């Protein structure tokens, strides 16, 4: 019993009995239900983050932000989604129509796939893959294909520039972000997200961010690199609205455009979740996530979200404070600073494990 899917399967088995054909049905249901749940949750959170972004932007800029739909604008994101659904879907006459249609879904799928291995706290994880973290890194790189595709298929020079920029940027910044995550893998020895969370604890000194000075640096490298992977200011080159008009999504309208945005905001949540799970202890409150009562499990989810939301907020805060870098400055920052530093972190952590026999600054690894 390592995930929701197996819990659903065993519950169904107990309720309706077991046979080979039924088992197959249970297995399908067991994975389908949590998958749909995660898709819904991520799109909903993406929607809520758009509202949060506008509210945060309003607060930073001495404005109110949206305040018309629902109590103090709280239903604005639903109205936006409905509006996007009702809008005319325009495909440019000279666009590559198939690629043009496909691109937003690939971007969205990249985001949602990542959600499959995010431990939301307790047993709430769709599937606890033993290569979980690698899976995340792979799934996130799927997004760049979608962006490049949309840039090419739009048959628009601005969109093409945006697509090329996104390819250059995301591919470059994947390296420091993956290396920063690997720093933690050296400590846990496992890629499984649940194991990574379980190795940490409730208190800050039990989190991997404070394990040694290098994981501390790795956390910030991951944060910066993930900002770049998210195409957020100060790294929003693919859509730099004052340079490339709107970049790769300039020709998109209606819900296709909506998918790009759901993916972008879903990605803010996903990266914040990864940072939380890997560096900030996830939903760990010092109890076994599988053998606790449902009340404790929900508490773990609460703890998880209590860590994720401030991280999302930081991403929004940065967006509304900083100007944009130039593309060559952004690339040199990645290749000249972030990648060497993250290599140093990785190697130093490896040496640390060797020298201190796996002990962190504040705490002793369980079982060592």
């Amino acid at each position, binding site marked *: 019993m390592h995930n929701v899917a197996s819990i659903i399967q065993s519950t169904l088995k107990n309720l309706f009995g077991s046979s080979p054909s039924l088992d197959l049905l249970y297995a399908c249901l067991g994975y389908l239900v949590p998958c749909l749940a995660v898709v819904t949750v991520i799109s909903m959170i993406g929607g809520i983050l758009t509202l949060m972004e506008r509210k945060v932007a309003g607060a930073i800029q001495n404005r109110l932000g949206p305040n018309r739909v629902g109590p103090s604008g709280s239903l604005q994101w639903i109205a936006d989604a409905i509006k996007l659904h009702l809008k005319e879907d325009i495909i440019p006459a000279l666009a590559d129509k198939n690629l043009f249609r496909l691109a937003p879904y690939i971007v969205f799928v990249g985001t949602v796939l990542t959600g499959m291995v995010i431990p939301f706290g307790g047993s709430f994880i769709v599937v606890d893959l033993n290569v979980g973290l690698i899976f995340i890194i792979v799934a996130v790189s799927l997004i760049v294909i979608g962006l490049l595709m949309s840039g090419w298929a739009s048959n628009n020079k601005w969109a093409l520039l945006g697509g090329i920029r996104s390819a250059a940027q995301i591919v470059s910044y994947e390296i420091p972000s993956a290396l920063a995550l690997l720093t933690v893998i050296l400590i846990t020895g496992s890629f499984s997200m649940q194991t990574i969370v379980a190795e940490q604890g409730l208190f800050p000194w039990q989190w991997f961010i404070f394990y040694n000075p290098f994981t501390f640096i790795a956390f910030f490298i991951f944060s910066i690199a993930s900002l770049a992977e998210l195409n957020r200011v100060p790294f929003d080159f693919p859509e730099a609205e004052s340079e490339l008009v709107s970049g790769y999504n300039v020709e998109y309208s209606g819900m296709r455009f909506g998918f790009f945005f759901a993916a972008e905001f879903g990605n803010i949540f996903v990266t914040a979740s990864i940072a939380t799970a890997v560096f900030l202890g996830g939903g760990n409150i010092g109890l076994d996530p599988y053998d606790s009562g449902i009340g404790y499990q929900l508490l773990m989810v609460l703890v998880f979200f209590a860590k994720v939301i401030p991280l999302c907020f930081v991403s929004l805060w940065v967006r509304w404070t900083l100007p944009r870098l*130039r593309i060559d*400055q952004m690339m040199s920052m990645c290749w000249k600073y972030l990648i060497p530093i993250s290599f140093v972190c990785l190697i130093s952590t490896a040496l640390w494990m060797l020298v201190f026999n796996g002990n962190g600054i504040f705490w002793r690894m369980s079982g060592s």
Partner: protein
Amino acid sequence: MAELVSQEMFLNMGPHHPSTHGVLRLIVQTDGEIMRRAIPDIGYLHRGIEKIAERVPYQGFMPYTDRIDYVSAFSGNLGYALTVERLAGIEVPEKAEYLRVIAAELARLGSHFIGVGAVLLDLGAVTPFVHALRERETYNDLMEMLCGARLTHNYARIGGVSHDVPEGFKEKTLRFIDHLEHEFIDEFNNLISFNSILVKRFANVGVVSAEMAIEYTLVGPNLRGSGVPFDLRRDDPYSIYDRFDFEIPVGKGKFGTVGDCYDRYWVRIQEIRESCRIIRQALQQMPEKGAIRTKIPKVFKPPKGEMYVRTECPRGEMGFYLISDGGKNPYRLKIRTGSFSAMSILEELSQGVMVADLVAIIGSFDIVAPEIDR
């Protein structure tokens, strides 16, 4: 394997583009991100203002001068009024002179808020723009108190100004200036001006040397940004500018080379402070009572002759060249504006920079498209 052919790309930046500050078209030849050249194509906002001047009476042309540069509408008013007055030899009452200076410096403030805000918006920083717009809102309120209009003021008249100071204007202006000098500018600088990303984007980008600036007849803050201390308010005083004490900020290469984008930006920030000083002095010196307008005949016919008057507008020198044939309409009116000369240097500056730099360069010249075309 077939040989790969690489080709330079022509991009149409504008006429509808978020960072061309109005309707301006740039034909950009790029090699990927690097730009070979950008050719400005102007004329999309040509409204024939100079031709209109030949068709309306002298007084009737005043509202059109608002539209030359609508970001600082009063500056156009003032230049035109001064030209006609000098041609016809009309004396302006002292109080009107003070009101004109106050309005002109308020217009400079309002324009520089947009100028520094918009260039930051072009660099992707949205919040400073909104903060600057908040201050411009107070400027709009003040102008509304003064003349009833918020954007196109039409405040100057030939021989004076249209309205006297309303009650509470003086106090509100002083409060506004105090707020700017002691709170806003420092807050703004802390928020963005010294931000290292901004410095990276601005320093050593779009460098215009002093010789180059003079060759291309750059004017106003763009010229001073290159280190040339030339300001018509001091060097060729018009109205009553010789009565005030103020500094002329020039570019000194604060974070890079003299004459880069940062210097032009920084000159504008400092000019906000200097304008505040002028407004404070003008408010203190202004007589409480007095006429605000010299009467001119209803059918106003200045004598035959010609006159060129230049004034220091927020976007630099704005010159009015007026020829009168003794009739009730001007015979010919030529307007010389600052944005136009800033456009001419763009092609040379844009060679070999990146697309993102072009946006920064256009922004740092504080171009207002209708002023280019008139």
